[in-house]
Structures are given as C-alpha cells and as structure tokens.
C-alpha cells in the first residue's frame, strides 16, 4: 500500500509535500480566525476540485453541474440531522448514496448513447438546474426560503455532530483533502486509472483494446459524485444555511471547477495549486476593494472570469505543469503525460 502510494513521486516532491503538510497543520496556531477560514476555503476548493478532476482530468468527461452533488450531499445530511437528529457521520452515507445515484442516472442517460463532450456538459447543467428548481418547491427542506441548521455559541467542539469552531472544520477539511490526494494518486495507478486515461485520450482506441468504456465512465461519475457530496456535508454544517438558489446555482458549478482548470486539469497537484492561487488572489482583491471603498457585487466574478480567460488562452495546461518543471518535479508520471 505504502509502496503504491509512493510510486512515481520524486524525492524532492515528497519533501515539499511533507513541508506543506506540516505548514497546513501548524498554521492555525499562529493566524487569526479569519485567515483560518480562508485556508479552509482553499482546502474546500482543492477537495471538490480533486473530485471533479476524476471525471474531467482522468476520464475526460466535462461536468459543469457538480453543484448538484454538493447540494444533494448538503441537503441530505442537513435534513437528517435537523429532522431526526442523525449525526452527519451517519448522514454522509446517505449523502454519498443519493449523489452516487444522481451521478449514475446522469451517466446512464449520457454514456449509453455516447452523449459526450459539450452535450454531456449541458446535460449535467440541466440536472443541476432541475434540482435547483425542484428544491425551491421541496417543502420538507423549506423550499426557496432556505434550510437552516440550529446554531449556538459553541464553547467546545462536538465532532460527532459537527458543531464547533472554524478550526475543527479546518482540520477536518485538511484530513479530507489529504485523503482525496492520496486516493486519487492511488486511483491513477490502478487498473481503473489507466483505463480512464485511455478513454480520455481516445475512446475508440480504448474500446478497441477491449475496455468497457461505458462501465469505466460510470465508475468515474459515481465516484466523483460521491466524493463531491462529502464536501456538501461539510458545507452544510460549516455555513448552517442552505438555499437552493445558491447551492445548486450554475455559478457554483463553475466556481468549483476553476481551481483544477487554473491549476492543471488531470494533474494531482493542480486542484490544490489552483485553489491556493485563486483564493489568495480573490482575498487580495477583496482587500484592495476594501481599501478603495468599492463595494459592488460581481467584481469578484469578473475577476474570476478574467483569470479563467487568461489561463485558457495562455496556459492551456494550467499553472502546475510549467511550475513543476520549474521546481524540477516534472519526471514523467502517468498523471502528466508528455
């Protein structure tokens, strides 16, 4: 197992990862609550980016509706907690199950007929929008008026019910991000991982080699959906309020794919690098706007749009591939083909 996890990672890379991890563990002891929230957001986007990357980066299926799985995961765990007092640690299985089924339905509809590329992307958006409008009228979770989790001033952290401080959520998210990174690293070196890359590069060739492309695309969408829903559970318990108009909105789907695209689609480090760059830049922008006294909604999104535009135009492979070359980490591994 350990051998599998270490395969194909250069020694300098390991060292950097270790330093980075130590930094992430230590930082909350030295910085303000606000900065911990920012770090939490970086990890959150790195995690969902990693989950999305399984579909797009590994298997080559462009999903633009991942907000669907975040929303379903969030609503399932939150509703079980509020209505029945069920701990999110149990609720998350329901979240993963529901999201996996949703992913399977979309995948089944699309992959059975070879609906791919942009058609698939549009289908994923359509399902997210369908859910958004549906949840607006879903009275069990209070429809469009929003679903709220009970909040109090917590003096101690209740990990079992996920009620507590920002720092608790931060460490939880850190654990999840590390686990996601390790899981994806292992996945890429598994049979399914190699099949996915083959499907991404050439579905026809993959099929000719005897790979059941329908089955492996389904694995990708189900796995990605289930993983994304976990981020939804954290989202629900961290923010304590859920609005269909926000959580299922197309802008959320786009927001959560920015990090892996800017970092580098299909790379393991991409989502983390992208999330870090994007969040740092966005926070910087916020600070500048605060200084200038400008408070206009939409500025942040315009900024995201410009970042995305510049990256797709000038760095079509993302920031990480050239960066890793700079750091001397570009030894050929299966996740970064030539």
């Amino acid at each position, binding site marked *: 197992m350990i051998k599998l996890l270490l395969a194909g990672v250069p020694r300098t890379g390991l060292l950097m990862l270790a330093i980075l991890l130590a930094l992430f563990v230590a930082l909350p002891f030295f910085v303000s609550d606000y900065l911990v929230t920012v770090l939490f957001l970086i990890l959150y986007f790195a995690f969902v980016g990693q989950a999305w990357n399984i579909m*797009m980066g590994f298997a080559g299926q*462009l999903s*633009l509706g991942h907000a669907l799985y975040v929303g379903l995961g969030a609503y399932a765990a939150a509703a079980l907690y509020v209505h029945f007092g069920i701990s999110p640690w149990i609720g998350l299985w329901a979240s993963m199950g529901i999201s996996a089924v949703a992913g399977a339905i979309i995948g089944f*509809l*699309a992959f059975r*007929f*070879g*609906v791919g*590329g*942009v*058609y698939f*992307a*549009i*289908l994923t*958006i*359509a*399902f997210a*929008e*369908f859910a958004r*409008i*549906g949840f*607006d*009228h879903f009275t069990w979770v209070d429809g469009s008026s929003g679903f709220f989790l009970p909040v109090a001033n917590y003096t101690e952290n209740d990990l079992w019910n996920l009620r507590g401080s920002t720092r608790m959520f931060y460490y939880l998210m850190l654990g999840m991000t590390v686990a996601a990174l390790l899981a994806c690293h292992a996945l890429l070196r598994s049979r399914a991982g190699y099949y996915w890359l083959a499907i991404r590069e050439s579905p026809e060739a993959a099929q000719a080699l005897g790979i059941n492309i329908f089955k492996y695309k389904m694995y990708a969408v189900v796995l990605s959906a289930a993983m994304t829903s976990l981020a939804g559970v954290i989202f629900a318990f961290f923010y304590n309020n859920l609005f269909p108009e926000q959580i299922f909105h*197309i*802008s959320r789907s*786009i927001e959560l794919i920015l990090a892996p*695209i800017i970092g580098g*689609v299909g790379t393991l480090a991409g989502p983390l690098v992208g999330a870090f760059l994007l969040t740092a830049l966005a926070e910087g922008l916020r600070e500048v706007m605060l200084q200038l006294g400008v408070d*206009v*909604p*939409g*500025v942040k*999104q*315009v900024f*995201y*749009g*410009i970042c*995305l*535009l510049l990256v*797709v*135009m000038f760095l*079509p492979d993302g920031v990480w591939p050239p960066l890793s070359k700079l750091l001397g980490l570009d030894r050929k591994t299966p996740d970064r083909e030539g």
Partner: protein
Amino acid sequence: MFTRGSLVPAEIYLNVAASGLLTGLVYGLMALGLSVIFGVVRVVNFAHGEMMTVAMYIALVLFTAYGLDPLVAMVPIAAVLFAFGYLLQAGLINPFITRPEHSQFMLLVAIALILVNLQLIAFGPDAQGVHTSYSFDSYALGPLIIDASKAYAAIAALVVAAALFAFFRFTLLGKAIRACADNYHGALVVGLNVKHLYALTFGLGAACVGAAGAMLMVVIDVTPSIGPAYTLLAFVIVITGGMGSMPGALLGGVLIGVTEALGGLLFTPSAKSMFAFGLLVLVLLFRPQGILGKKTA
C-alpha cells in the same frame, strides 16, 4: 378557478398554448443563432444568453433615453451584436478552433462569466422592463385572446429567421459559409477565407440573438441573472430540435415555449423550466440527435 368570464378550461389551455407558441418563436430565433454558430464554427457559444441580455439592456437604455421602441431598435442592436460577435470570433475564438472541445468551452464560460457580472455591476440585480404603447393591447381571434406584444415579437422573429434562411440558401456568401460547415479542408483548398467566414457566422449568430433579445424586451423584464438561464434554454431548444438544423431550432423553440407555458399553467409558474429539462431528458433518451437532427455515427 374557472369562474372568470365565460372561459371554459379548454379555452384557457388553448390561450396559454398560443401564447407559448408566440414566445416560442422568439426563443427559436435565439436558439437559431446558437445553432448557426455550432453548425458552422463547431463551437458551442456558452455566452449566448449573456449576449442576449446585453441586447436587452441596449434596448432598455435606448427605450428609456430616447423612447425608441425595442422592435425598431432591433435593427441597430442586431448590427451592434453582429460586430461584437465578429470581433469575438476573429480575436478570441479563432485561435481556439483547433484546440480540444473543453478548452473552447471554458473560453466561452469565461466570456459568459465576465459579461454577466459586468451587467450586474452596470445595471444592478433588479428586474427592469419597458412599457410600450401596445403593452396592454390584445387581439381577439375567435376564442383566442392574443397579446399584441407577443404577436409583434413573434412576427419579427419569423421575418428575421426567414431572412437568415434566404441568406444561407440564395447568396454566394451564404453558400461559402455552408461550404465551410460541410468541409473545412475543402473550403480551405478552394481558397475560401475560412477565418473571415467563421467570424461572419459568429456575427450572424450574435445578430440573431441580439434581435431576439430586443423582441423579448417587450415581453419580459431583464435582469443579469436571466443570461445563464437563457443560455441553458437555448441549449435545450437546440438539442431538442437537432444541433445544426435551422428548422429544428425554430421547431424546438416553439415546442419548449408551449411546454413551458402549459407546465406553468398546470403546476406553478416558477417550476415551468423543469418541464423544458424534462423534455430534454426525453429527447436525449429516445432521439439523441434531436427531432430534426441527422444521425451521426
């Protein structure tokens, strides 16, 4: 519920369906723009609805500042959008033609994101509309009561669509564009300036959506947030009708218009787009190439 006047339920349905049909024709024109762009340039314009709201805001500004009727302003607005589309294709999208599909898509997602939020910054999030002299007029046609605004908009949509059909069918330029769509390399070999023709096509598609935006302005209110919704609606229409099929786009528009109108009547109006998505899923299940689309391998 059915006690108002002497209307019987069947007539209500008929009226709502007729109203949906008229709106659907305008939807169809909007989707026609998307279909033309996709059919020729093979790029999916993810900023389609956002471009439409740009047109709507121009119409709004022209109306409030100069009292210009959106159905008249349609002509200059289409010209502005044509120029915008031409420059967008010539400047940003042409270098992306040989890039992978998802890369093109992300480029347009970025443009959409910038457009919608610039509108939010410029005009704010509130819904704004125009009131023309015929806003509350209607025509009685047997049992049907036809809203004048919708009727005018639908007629305008048909005229523009017919002009576009004629352009592609009968002019040399239209033929050249169709040649690019049929065989990219062949078009290059016979000496067509493909990049220029692509830019023209994108301009034409943008002009269609611009005209449709001006027409919709007399029917609905505009907010920046309807942009992404209409992008999606255009996709649903084009996939339903058949990607790349021009009559398919109009048919899809009418179908979606009527479905939404009846869905809104039968259930609640806010859930009406769910029916459009339901239709999309059905089409993808049973006829993935669309109603009038050609089967591809």
